[in-house]
């Protein structure tokens, strides 16, 4: 199971951050060629990220590049450069329709072919940041077999919605729910929007808890300081792991005795409960928690 709890923004023009971004151990680092780069520095940021990706060892941290949209003069060059640089994922901003994804995919395919690379070498992610994008979320999520996830971007969305962000987040509740539902229906990852106030740690943790509760896999983040709180929220608690193991033990016991229906902790165990238990155990393992080997073969 691939963890995508934290995707850390790294301005693609900042040499020090491009060099060191992986040392903080977020699950993914996202080199930005879009909004954090001034128009007169697009060329140099593209070259910096290109050479860094071809040269540096990011030690297993997933590498993502946020390119400029194809409606800008930079998107096509970004794709050509990045296909040849070889990040794990290209993330398209401001995706509004399935066609946006298909257009990017076609350019990636052409460049892979021209460069003699295996087709499908680079995965895709889409950021959905507008009301139209939210309404098309499922079509976007199923637009390409390369698409491994969709991410919500709230800043542009709330502006389009003629509102602003609040701490409670009621103005983006529908968008979050729609996006995560689309991702789940498509069987891909869902990432929540950024939380910009670095000094409001309590508010940040509250928001991460809510995102997790809604079903998100993780969050786009803007500072290494935000990594640990997200990983802590997403790590299953000891009690959750123990409950999940009890379910798995119960299932194993039922199989042994040819029992059809079983109860664990006074609750009937059904398939969704088993699926949740399996997911908690997988998540615990992926988060580095130790689960006794014999427990994994129940």
């Amino acid at each position: 199971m691939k963890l995508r709890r934290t995707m850390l923004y790294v301005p693609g023009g900042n040499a020090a951050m491009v060099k060191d971004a992986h040392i903080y151990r977020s699950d993914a680092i996202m080199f930005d060629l879009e909004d954090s780069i001034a128009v007169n520095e697009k060329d140099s940021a593209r070259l910096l990220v290109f050479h860094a990706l071809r040269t540096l060892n990011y030690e297993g941290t997933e590498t993502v590049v946020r390119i400029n949209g194809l409606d800008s003069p930079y998107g096509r060059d970004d794709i050509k450069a990045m296909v040849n640089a070889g990040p794990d994922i290209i993330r398209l901003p401001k995706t509004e329709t399935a066609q946006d994804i298909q257009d990017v995919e076609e350019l990636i395919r052409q460049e892979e072919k021209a460069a003699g690379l295996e087709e499908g070498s680079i995965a895709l992610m889409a950021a959905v940041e507008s009301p139209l994008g939210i309404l098309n979320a499922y079509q976007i999520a199923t637009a390409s077999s390369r698409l491994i996830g969709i991410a919500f971007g709230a800043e542009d969305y709330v502006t389009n919605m003629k509102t602003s962000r609040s701490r409670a987040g009621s103005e983006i509740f529908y968008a979050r729910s729609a996006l995560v539902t689309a991702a789940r229906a498509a069987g891909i990852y869902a990432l929540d929007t950024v939380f910009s106030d670095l000094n409001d740690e309590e508010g940040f943790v509250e928001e991460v808890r809510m995102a997790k509760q809604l079903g998100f896999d993780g969050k786009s983040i803007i500072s290494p300081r935000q990594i640990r709180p997200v990983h802590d929220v997403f790590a299953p608690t000891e009690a959750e792991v123990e409950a999940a193991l009890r379910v798995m033990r119960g299932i194993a016991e039922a199989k042994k005795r040819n029992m059809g229906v079983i109860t664990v902790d006074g609750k009937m165990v059904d398939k969704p409960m088993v699926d949740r238990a399996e997911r908690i155990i997988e998540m615990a393992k992926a988060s580095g928690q130790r689960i006794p080997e014999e427990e994994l073969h129940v």
Partner: protein
Amino acid sequence: MKITKKGIAGTLESSDVLVTVSPPVEPGVTIELESIVKKQFGNRIIAVVNEVLEGLGIKDVHVSLQDKGALDCTVRARLEAAAYRAAGISQLQWRR
């Protein structure tokens, strides 16, 4: 590639290098290096500069570098950006 005007790329921030590429006063390549790690890595930086210039087919140029501890890949990126700007080229060759 012909250098027709001055091109600058990079910054003076830590781990970066500010590269200025200009048409030379006389034919040939001249390199001027200022670096916080010149004693240890000066020769290596010059070698990277020469390699990049050769790769881009630049024979006549003056390159000035103010290095703040940039990695080789950063020197390459900044020098290429400055050179392309100085040659007025916006379509780059990415298949290498």
